[in-house]
């Protein structure tokens, strides 16, 4: 009995760090979104890094990125962005719910499948965000920036995903 207790105890010790990692990386993505890069026109079409993080963790470790953390990340993003509060939270929470429901499609599959899935999510998120923001302001917004942003987010996916996978590997090794 005592022998089997040991690994559990060990897991508990490093557990807090591990358990916070998905949330921490998601929050990091929030900062990455708002930090000025000083590239002309980049601010308008900054990839939605947070969406990548939420997608990734919803597939691989939904238990470690709870609804509360997703909500908080969206809220922080809106606060820093100066966006109407709650819009990002809503988009992220719905994305999370959607992906967690379908995660069986992605777990254990190669990168291409996961990326393809993300294309769908990014498109859906862009359409949804455009709709809700248009409703919020009560006018039809130009959908092109939303489209460009979705394209850029999809293009940035492999890079962000690489770092998230690295982070996750570290998590597995420590656990």
């Amino acid at each position: 009995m005592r022998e089997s207790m040991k690994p559990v105890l060990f897991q508990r010790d490093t557990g807090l760090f591990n358990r916070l990692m998905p949330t921490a990386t998601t929050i990091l993505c929030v900062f990455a979104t708002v930090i000025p890069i000083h590239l002309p026109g980049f601010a308008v079409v900054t990839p939605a890094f947070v969406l990548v993080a939420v997608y990734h963790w919803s597939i691989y470790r939904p238990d470690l990125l709870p609804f509360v953390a997703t909500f908080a990340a969206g809220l922080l993003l809106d606060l820093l962005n100066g966006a109407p509060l709650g819009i990002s939270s809503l988009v992220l929470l719905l994305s999370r719910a959607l992906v967690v429901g379908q995660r069986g499609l992605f777990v254990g599959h190669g990168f291409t499948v996961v990326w393809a899935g993300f294309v769908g999510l990014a498109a859906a998120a862009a359409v949804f965000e455009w709709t809700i923001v248009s409703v919020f302001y009560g006018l039809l917004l130009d959908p092109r920036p939303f489209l460009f942003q979705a394209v850029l987010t999809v293009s940035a996916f492999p890079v962000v995903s690489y770092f998230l996978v690295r982070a996750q590997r570290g998590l597995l090794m420590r656990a």
Partner: protein
Amino acid sequence: MLVVLGKADILLFDRARTTVSDALAPVLDAVAQPLGTVAAGVRRVEDLFSVYSENQRLREENQRLLQWQEVARRLETENSELKNLLHFEPQDVHGYITGRVIANSGGAFLRNVLVDVGSREGVERGQAAIAGEGIVGRVAEVGTRAARVLLVTDLNSRIPVVLDSSRDRAVLAGDNTTRPRLLYLPGKATVKVGDRIVTSGSGGIFPPGLPVGVVASVDNGLVRVEPYAELSHLEYVRIVDFGLSGVLPQSAIPMPKATKGARRAPDAETP
């Protein structure tokens, strides 16, 4: 739900936003600074390659500017003499507060930046922000050490302007494109591409005469303005302290002093 709530109780949400921006300003500042340095380094290398042509260009420009200086000097003396004749009271410019951009909105529908100066440095809501040659936007939120500048291209930006040549008044309205539109131009106004646009000062939001931009296109009554300021990659902005009280909705509109405005003013203004 939060979205609806945010639309209803703007004051509370504004304060929450300001608090968070304030608290995170040092963090953002710390990250933005090295990134800015890297960007500057890259630019310096780029500049090296164009030193000769740049030098040539600057020499020509210098010649031209010297002529302008001459003109400006003459106009200045003329202006001051005329002011003396009219007993004109000049509007006092208190000074500029320079802030570095520490965050920009990474959103498809947002055009604003967070700068690292706040009420500590004397920034107030409603003040104009300029960069380079022209106006960038106005201060929309102020925290102790950070302030949010709503760019002229933002959907919510409305700035009273005037056509420099014809003195026709209009409102410069952002619509999230790079070129804001001119609204409410008088019907008989003739606008042509290249017309200079400056702030009109009506409404007391901005002091009159700040350069805004030039008319970029006139198409079927739809007039678009190309701002002078490079809004796409702002690094530093100057907040202009003109000693005017910033007039913005929900932060104490000065007119009805006796009634609601007076009661609301202290709780909206004091940090």
